[in-house]
């Protein structure tokens, strides 16, 4: 029996309880919808246009940098697990690996793409 079965059960229970709470609220709460109630709340001002406003490309840049470093750390986890038994050679490899990526970060930084504005 894989321990993942219990993770699956956790997922199931983790779904059941909030769903239960929301369903209970749905059953108990009054339902009297009207159009005014259902407008979106934007500080009392009439909504203009739709919600898909123009976004800064910066969001993308940050997500991009994140993605790269995320994958990097994924590579580093097996390395970290075996570090104690592999000795200095593995440490140097890992450090080279990190340094190469730090070069990427430095590039991004130098090009001023980590600035929000």
């Amino acid at each position, binding site marked *: 029996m894989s321990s993942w079965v219990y993770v699956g059960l956790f997922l199931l229970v983790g779904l059941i309880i909030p769903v239960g709470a929301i369903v209970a609220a749905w059953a108990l709460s009054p339902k009297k919808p009207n159009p005014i109630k259902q407008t979106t709340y934007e500080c009392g001002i009439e909504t203009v246009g739709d919600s898909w406003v123009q976004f800064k*490309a910066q969001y*993308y840049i940050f997500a*991009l940098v994140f*993605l*790269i470093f*995320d*994958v990097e750390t*994924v*590579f580093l986890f097996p390395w970290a697990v075996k570090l104690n038994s592999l000795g200095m050679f593995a440490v140097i490899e890992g450090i080279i690996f990190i340094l190469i990526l730090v070069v990427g970060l430095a590039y991004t930084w130098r090009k001023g793409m980590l600035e929000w504005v």
Partner: protein
Amino acid sequence: MVPLSWYLIFSAILFSIGLFGVLSRRNLVAILLGIELMLNSVNVNLAAFWRYGTVTNITGQVFAIIVFAVAAAEVSVGLALVISVYRKRNTVIADEIDMLKF
């Protein structure tokens, strides 16, 4: 016990769905979504072959991890290109981006 062939056929179907997406979607982002599906199907295969081959030989998982890195690289550059094209040409429809023709 699940037979190996189930995994292989599952991944074949996933691959074909991704392929269909790549060949038929108009939107560039959607094409990249299809590519992600294809890469995932490859990973399923790699993991399945690892599980059903020699378990102590971890090569299948190593390859899968490399595929993760490749997928990350592919998607970041691919989407960056899409965004760049969108800025210049104001479209992300694949058929409208045909500057490479005569």
